[in-house]
């Protein structure tokens, strides 16, 4: 951390608001004393609806956070229950209003589609409610069911049914259509910003391969070139290392040019900015498969403007599979 220049800070992955605002105040002060934070434009913290009061939000704002990410998930209480969330839609709206009062410059809401029991109509009504609330930013995630979870078990045994792939596609395009119509930019497969100034600088830095440092167990760091490292996952071991002045990194990898190319393409195809074909080829020495590229253009998944490849909303849906085929 020493002497580094940071441009964004993000407190998330877990429930950071479980710690009192005073902690965060101290934390940010600590970061500032160790490194250069004079250029930090975006400083985000995640909060769950109903879990923070207006007073705490004010305190967090005071501590230095200027952006709040609220894990709304849904405005439908039945679906919230399916998702195992303990908050209600009223609490979500309440938290949003409190955040506004606390004068967060930018508020982002996380929404989820493809939830068992969710209809396209219900999803559309969530999106329409967004138009009413007018947050600066929205993330629309399709529910991914992870093996080993209760949800996975329920779906496998038929207790719950996830909307099928075709419905999920419709939900994705509904978000694209409705949010774009109400002035949002669909700038990444799951991300929508009310104008260029509301694009998440922090998230974008993951996608343009800007260096970052991750603090806390399991957090990943990247040097912006080829080295990626990750911290120990056990909290006890993590603390022990840090308290003894040792690095908490569990392991690291130095990626090859081909791996770097795969990352650039995979990330580029998710973002409306796309990627520069020539630049990737020059930097990594990897040749992109032109035949496959032409197929993608034919299927209207990407457009070529100069040497820059820009995905369409349809194209973003195939970012993973297509990135493998392009190399």
């Amino acid at each position, binding site marked *: 951390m020493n002497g580094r220049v940071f441009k964004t800070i993000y407190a998330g992955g877990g429930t950071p608001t479980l710690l009192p605002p005073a902690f965060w105040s101290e934390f940010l002060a600590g970061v500032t004393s160790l490194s250069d934070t004079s250029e930090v434009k975006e400083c985000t913290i995640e909060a769950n609806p109903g879990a923070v009061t207006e007073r705490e939000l004010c305190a967090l704002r005071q501590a230095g956070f200027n952006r709040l990410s609220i894990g709304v998930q849904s405005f439908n209480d039945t679906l919230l229950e399916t998702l195992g969330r303990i908050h209600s839609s009223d609490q979500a709206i309440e938290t949003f209003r409190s955040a506004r009062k606390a004068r967060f410059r930018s508020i982002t809401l996380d929404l989820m589609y493809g939830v068992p029991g969710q209809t396209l109509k219900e999803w559309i009504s969530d999106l329409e409610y967004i138009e009413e609330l007018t947050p600066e930013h929205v993330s629309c995630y399709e529910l991914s069911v992870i093996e080993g979870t209760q949800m996975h078990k329920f779906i496998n045994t038929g207790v719950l049914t996830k909307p099928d792939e*075709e419905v999920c*596609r419709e939900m994705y395009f509904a978000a694209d259509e409705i949010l774009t119509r109400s002035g949002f930019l669909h700038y990444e497969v799951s991300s929508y910003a009310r104008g260029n100034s509301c694009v998440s600088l922090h998230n974008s830095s993951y996608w343009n391969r800007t260096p970052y440092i991750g603090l806390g167990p399991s957090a990943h760091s990247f040097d912006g070139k080829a080295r990626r490292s990750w911290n120990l996952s056990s909290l006890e071991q993590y603390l022990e290392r840090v308290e003894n002045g040792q690095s908490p990194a569990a392991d690291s990898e130095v990626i090859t040019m081909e791996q770097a190319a795969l990352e650039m393409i995979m990330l580029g195809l998710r973002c409306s900015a796309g990627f520069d074909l020539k630049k990737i080829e020059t930097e990594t020495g990897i040749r992109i498969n032109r035949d496959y590229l032409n197929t993608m253009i034919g299927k209207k998944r990407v457009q070529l403007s100069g040497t820059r490849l820009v995905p369409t909303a349809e194209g973003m*849906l*195939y970012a*993973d599979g297509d*990135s493998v085929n392009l190399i």
Partner: protein
Amino acid sequence: MRRHIRNFCIIAHIDHGKSTLADRLLQATGTVSARDFHDLMLDTMDIERERGITIKSTAVTMNYKSKDGNEYELNLIDTPGHVDFAYEVSRALASCEGALLVIDAAQGVEAQTVANLYKAMEQNLTVIPVINKIDLLSANILETMGEIEGELGLNVDDSVCVSAKTGEGIEELLEAIVEKVPSPGGKEDLPLRARIFDSIYDPYRGVIVYFRIEEGSIKKGEGILMMAAGKEYKVEELGHFGIKRQPCPELTAGEVGYLIAGIKAVEDVKSGDTVISAENPAGKPLEGYEEVKPVVFSSIYPVSSEDYEDLSAAMERLKLNDASLTYEKVSSPGLGFGFRCGFLGLLHLEVVQERLEREFDLSLVLTAPTVKYRITLTDGSVLNVDNPVNYPDPVKIQLTEEPYIKASIIMPDRYIGAVTKLILDRRGDNYKNLYVGKKRVEITADLPLGEVVYDFYDKLKSVTQGYGSFDYEITDYRAGDLVKVDILVNHEKVEALSMLVHRDRARPWAVTACKNLKSEIHRQQFKIPIQGAIGGQIISRETITALRKDVTAKCYGGDITRKRKLLEKQKAGKKRMKMVGSVAIPQKAFLAVLRRED
């Protein structure tokens, strides 16, 4: 001074404890130190250890000081138990004078026990019945002794009771070997004649030849001649089989050993060929081995056509160590260059595939295994078809005949119902059952070989909870109403998946095949119909729906590494798929077609 030699092998039904008994003998004779010992010493191949089966026979020399005060050289040849490798057993027996016939005291005499005994008797071997696993609570020594006399017609007084697990009875067994197995005989003063029974390829030393000397002797530095190949070599090294090779200056009549002579041409060494002296050549070769007749046929293609040359070299080397494998070059419009191979059974096929993939690092596609059909055309000519590709136009066929076997299945009588059903499901005929023990029954039946090659043995094991044993011999050809079922993937016929099937079975077979393929072929960005067809008529259909999206929702911090690794894995997986038209078919799918639901 002439050495005291005993050459013997261990034969048994599968799972009766051959390899464990071999372990115990190695330990008891001090051939392997306690420090170097590990279980199943002689099963050196990964596949053998993983599956718990012996595939290759292995030779090892043990030194034993008998109670009679003499030092003996005991040459043990461990042999496979599975019915597919019966051929390997026959060759091993030809190098021995005695055989330990191992019988599990809890299981009693089984089909392969009988079959192996007959083979040993054909070779005039002295058979010592060994009642194994006497430490088990379920061991029934008296009943087993009764079976040895009653079913096998052997003298119980010759039998030895052991527990290969605990080591009980091993000393007695060693004494019995010394006492009962005849010394090899064979005249040392005659010109050299040695029979090759196996060989392996070593990248540094060339072919290593395993042989038994019938007459004469062989010395380091001498010139030798491979009779069939007509090639001359100079012996660089020869020796005994320990756990590692043990070089020695000379081997004489009756001894089993190996030789290294800088042989780089794999085709010069053939199992069954006679090695003679170049300086003092014997006139006539020894009797060779019976030509093996493959019963299951399949084509092997490299997944990537650039690997054809590597596959070709690998086949040559594997053949050296597996004389029962037969092959010839083929080419297919869809699959490129490959080899049409003959196997002794399906396990043999799987073993060959695994050895090629592991030992030679190849990625392969195997076509649906089939038997050899005899087809009489309307013009009277007769065709032998072992590849569905060569199946003639049905209108020109007068008669199709398929090979039949006589199957013998021995099991506890409580499984009669399940086994009978299995036999009838596989078009069995001429069914008979006979009690061979108190509660043990032998079922014999005539079955089409084509119904047995795929998974009959596995199914039998499963319906009898492992207690059913199986042996068979091919008997004759009988008329059968067969049709060729083709599989079309994305409207393209996949030659490798075509099968000849009995007409009544064609539809259910095609339905299952399409279903299995659907579960093995990954979804792609377009819709893929999978169809089963007889000629132009579609008899089954499944559809793999198009992948309508292929992206995960979140990708922050650590997700990037995880996702990249996942994509790399997918990319690597693609290299193991065969492109048929625009569809990537995973290697596994080619055999998945054959899985049955019964």
